[in-house]
């Protein structure tokens, strides 16, 4: 070890000094190369590529957040609110300020009720998110609870009372099927948007955004929604908002006034009572839908707040189907209410004259099949007027056979059956008017004469929705192509309606039909005589209908057809009635369908009468709906008879 502890040899130092310096120069050279590389790299990053990196830094730093706009509100024609935004008093918690989340929830629980499942959800959410993210603890608090939390704020660090907006339907059940409701955006909503060929809009990503789920809320989604606001915020690496850089407020959509008259709408539901039924009331001059009731109904408000699964199941299990919009999606065989269509098709085609008679022995023989009239003994010789008045089936078997299904289908479409109506209603269905082509496509069998006969009395394949029946009635009553409409005014400006074009049929034929429909209600032998309106200024014209939902076998017919009252509810006939008033100057058209109600004259016609009487009373018998001022040229059919 002596070499290690020994002294350095100074003579050697002198000899070696040059070597150390030379090696030092080499080392310095290597180091200079490295320094050069570092400098070159600095230049590369900070001078050459600086633009790119600066963009990346901005992308890191700046986030765009959308601000939900206030959804536009809906009113009825008189300005009564149908869908409004109310204050939603809610409480959020920020974990990093709260410290002990459980303790804060306990304290909060002393002020307001926090159910156990809600508490568990909050604690779970808190674990999953960053400490600075506010977590919703309770929504839709009462003002008293909210005030109490505010008063106790010092004892509740990290608990923040907030005021948001929430959708509210003041008339809940009565307008549920027209207005619909909104809810959180779900995957199903996104799928629906995608399948409609749209891109899901960025606004849908706002956590508290609510989208129209059904009814006008869904059909008018893009009108009501408005435009999202925008704020640019600076965030740090974990997403905490440092500050807001700038902000543009969103704009809500335009408030809409619907054509609905809330008072009549309410009356319709009241009148329908427990029946499973649908009513549509329309202004025949301009197509205004004054009332559309689907009974029974449901309260949409719990859906906005999040309905409990038990309550939802109860709605689903009800055999009267309260969630089903019967006037828009309910498709029923129109039965005898279809007879005007067949008659008009035949009159226009000339295969039968207005006064020509057909003999009804109670049935019509076609090959081996017998087609029965509802009256077993038959009506004897009947002309057009009597066939409508007494609803003779055999007359229509004969007429339908003569004119053929294609002409009937053509007339149906002209009157609004089997076509899509252009109104903002979700789940609106187009019904079904069969043709030979349709049957070949759908059933891959040929059209039979028997099919035509069945169609002639509105049975068989023929299906129509209550709103289509109302449109049909309005067109028959006015002689014009009345289109239904639901929106009366946008942002306070009335939507103009042009006078609908003529229907394009012989007015004398229409006149004959109207007189027959008058007799249905008002003549001694009319099927709806018991439901006539006695006031001279508001006489009703109409047509009853009873549509079978089952086949009557030969054996049953032989024994005697079982009376409706003796059948289980779901096998009874549907009762229908279409009508308008005043008969001499048509103003209001109505259609009523009572599911499994039995006969149209007994179950449906009285409802129609009562609703029209309510209209008369409501509008003071003036024959004028209010709020016509400034509303363009309403369609005014020439007064006839």
């Amino acid at each position, binding site marked *: 070890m002596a070499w*290690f502890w020994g002294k350095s040899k100074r003579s050697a*130092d002198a000899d070696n000094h040059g070597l150390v310096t030379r090696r030092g120069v080499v080392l310095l050279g290597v180091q200079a190369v490295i320094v050069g590389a570092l400098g070159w790299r600095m230049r590369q990053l900070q001078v050459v590529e600086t633009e790119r990196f*600066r963009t990346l830094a901005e992308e890191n730093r700046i986030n765009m957040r959308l601000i939900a706009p206030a959804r536009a509100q809906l009113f009825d024609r008189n300005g009564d609110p149908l869908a409004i935004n109310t204050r939603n008093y809610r409480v959020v918690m920020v974990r990093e300020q709260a410290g002990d989340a459980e303790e804060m929830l306990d304290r909060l629980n002393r002020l307001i009720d926090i159910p156990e499942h809600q508490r568990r959800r909050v604690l779970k959410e808190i674990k999953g998110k960053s400490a600075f993210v506010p977590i919703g603890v309770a929504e839709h608090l009462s003002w008293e609870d909210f005030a109490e939390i505010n008063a106790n704020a010092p004892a509740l660090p990290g608990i923040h009372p907030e005021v948001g907006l929430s959708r509210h339907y003041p008339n809940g059940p009565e307008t549920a099927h027209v207005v619909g409701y909104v809810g959180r955006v779900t995957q199903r909503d996104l799928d629906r948007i995608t399948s409609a060929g749209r891109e899901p809009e960025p606004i849908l990503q706002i956590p508290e955004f609510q989208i129209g789920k059904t009814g006008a809320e869904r059909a008018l989604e893009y009108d009501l929604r408005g435009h999202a606001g925008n704020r640019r915020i600076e965030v740090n690496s974990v997403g905490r908002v440092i500050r807001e850089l700038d902000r543009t407020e969103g704009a809500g959509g335009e408030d809409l006034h619907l054509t609905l008259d809330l008072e009549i709408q309410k009356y319709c539901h009241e009148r329908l009572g427990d029946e499973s039924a649908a009513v549509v009331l329309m202004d025949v001059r301009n197509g205004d839908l004054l009332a559309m009731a689907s009974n029974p109904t449901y309260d949409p408000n719990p859906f906005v707040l999040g309905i409990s699964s038990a309550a939802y199941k109860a709605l689903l299990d009800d055999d009267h189907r309260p969630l089903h919009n019967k006037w828009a999606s309910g498709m029923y065989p129109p039965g005898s209410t279809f007879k005007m269509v067949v008659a008009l098709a035949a009159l226009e085609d000339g295969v039968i004259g207005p006064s020509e008679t057909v003999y009804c022995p109670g049935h019509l023989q076609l090959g081996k099949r017998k087609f029965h009239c509802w009256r077993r003994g038959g009506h004897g010789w009947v002309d057009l007027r009597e066939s409508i008045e007494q609803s003779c089936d055999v007359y229509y078997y004969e007429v339908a056979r003569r004119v053929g299904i294609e002409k009937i289908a053509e007339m149906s479409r002209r009157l609004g059956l089997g076509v899509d109506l252009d109104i903002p209603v979700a789940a609106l269905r187009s019904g079904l008017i069969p043709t030979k082509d349709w049957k070949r496509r759908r059933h891959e069998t040929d059209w039979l004469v028997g099919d035509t006969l069945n169609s002639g009395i509105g049975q068989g394949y023929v299906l129509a929705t209550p709103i289509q029946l109302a449109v049909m009635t309005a067109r028959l009553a006015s002689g014009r192509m009345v289109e239904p409409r639901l929106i009366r005014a946008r942002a306070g400006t009335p939507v103009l309606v042009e006078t609908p074009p003529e229907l394009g049929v012989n007015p004398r034929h229409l006149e004959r039909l109207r007189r027959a429909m008058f007799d249905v209600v008002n003549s001694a032998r009319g099927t709806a005589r018991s439901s006539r309106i006695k006031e001279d200024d508001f006489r009703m014209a109409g047509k009853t209908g009873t549509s079978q939902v089952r086949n009557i076998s030969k054996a049953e017919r032989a024994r005697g057809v079982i009376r409706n009252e003796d059948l289980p509810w779901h096998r009874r006939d549907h009762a229908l009635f279409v009508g308008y008033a005043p008969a001499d100057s048509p103003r209001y058209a109505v259609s009523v369908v009572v599911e499994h109600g039995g006969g149209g004259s007994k179950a449906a016609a009285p409802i129609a009468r009562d609703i029209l009487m309510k209209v008369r009373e409501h509008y003071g018998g003036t024959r004028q709906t209010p709020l016509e001022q400034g509303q363009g040229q309403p369609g005014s059919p020439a007064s006839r008879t």
Partner: protein
Amino acid sequence: MSSLSARPAVGLTLTKKILRLNWALILLLAAISCAGFLMLYSVAGGSMEPWAGRQIVRFGVGIVIMLIVALIDIKIWRWFSPLAYLGAMALLVAVEFVGTTGMGAQRWLNLGPIQLQPSELMKIGVVMALARYYAVLERDRVSHPLWMLPPLAMIILPMLLVLKQPDLGTALLIGMSGAVVMFLAGVSWWYWGTLIVVGVSSVWTVLESRGTSWQILNNYQYTRIDTFLDPERDPLGAGYHITQSKIALGAGGISGRGYMQGTQSRLDFLPEKHTDFIFTSLSEEFGFVGSLSLLALYGLILMFCFVSMAINRDRFSALLIGGLAATFFFFWAVNMAMVMGLIPVVGVPLPLVSYGGSAMLVLLLSFGLIQSAHVHRPKVL
């Protein structure tokens, strides 16, 4: 014992010693440290707490220690060199036991009020011991294979201990510091040439064997090498730091975003912004001008040390200065190359700028030794 050209500097008064100090070097060190204080203040969001204040105190203490060390005769340090090395070794061994059981953090040793990283001390220790070894070794034995075994052992032993901690960065720095002293002492070019050839070819062989029948490493080991060499393959994991660091540097541009205006640092996109990545914060806020200036300051220190080494006729002193300056150089070169994405991420702080007491004290201690060698250099006649 005395030579014609050089005489040992004996009998210097304290005043003369102070005058002989390399004041330019001290000024450069202070300037770099001030840049550090400035950045520590900035990354703390404009606050002396928690870093800048303490760093200033440590710098003050460090400067005093440096001056004391500088004024002690280099002969005493030369005598002390082997002890310093053995002491550092003892601490390294101690940290293996006490460090693991006592503190949880393996690299640290708790010595009362201060916490010490023995591996930091070893960087000085290995340079001192090797300088001493080659100072006494006869010239013709420098490249003799047998006489190369002791210095190799002196380098490899502490490297293994540090690797076990594990701290790859410091282990490599210790290795390179030792190698530099051997290089300066004149170990034959043949060895260096062989070292380079063997090193390059073995790396090439290992990489080249991948996917062949004679593959040397397991597949997962290759994957690890891949991520180590190119962390940007994993942008949210290992690559995140380096990606954010490059963004900060690049966004700085020529003139920087302004003091305390660096969004990458202030919004926490930068990792370890007060320690290993502090250069990135500086570059973001002061731009190309700032980072180039810091590079120049470091470069000037290198130049001053080289001059000091070149004029020093004492072999131990020259080797000591050269070795310690090279260690210092490796520190900042590796750190800068790392944050600029030139080399893989290894945990090496930026000397004098990064927050850290142990590193600061050890660095100033080594500059104290350089100063001592400079002050007590033999007179050239």
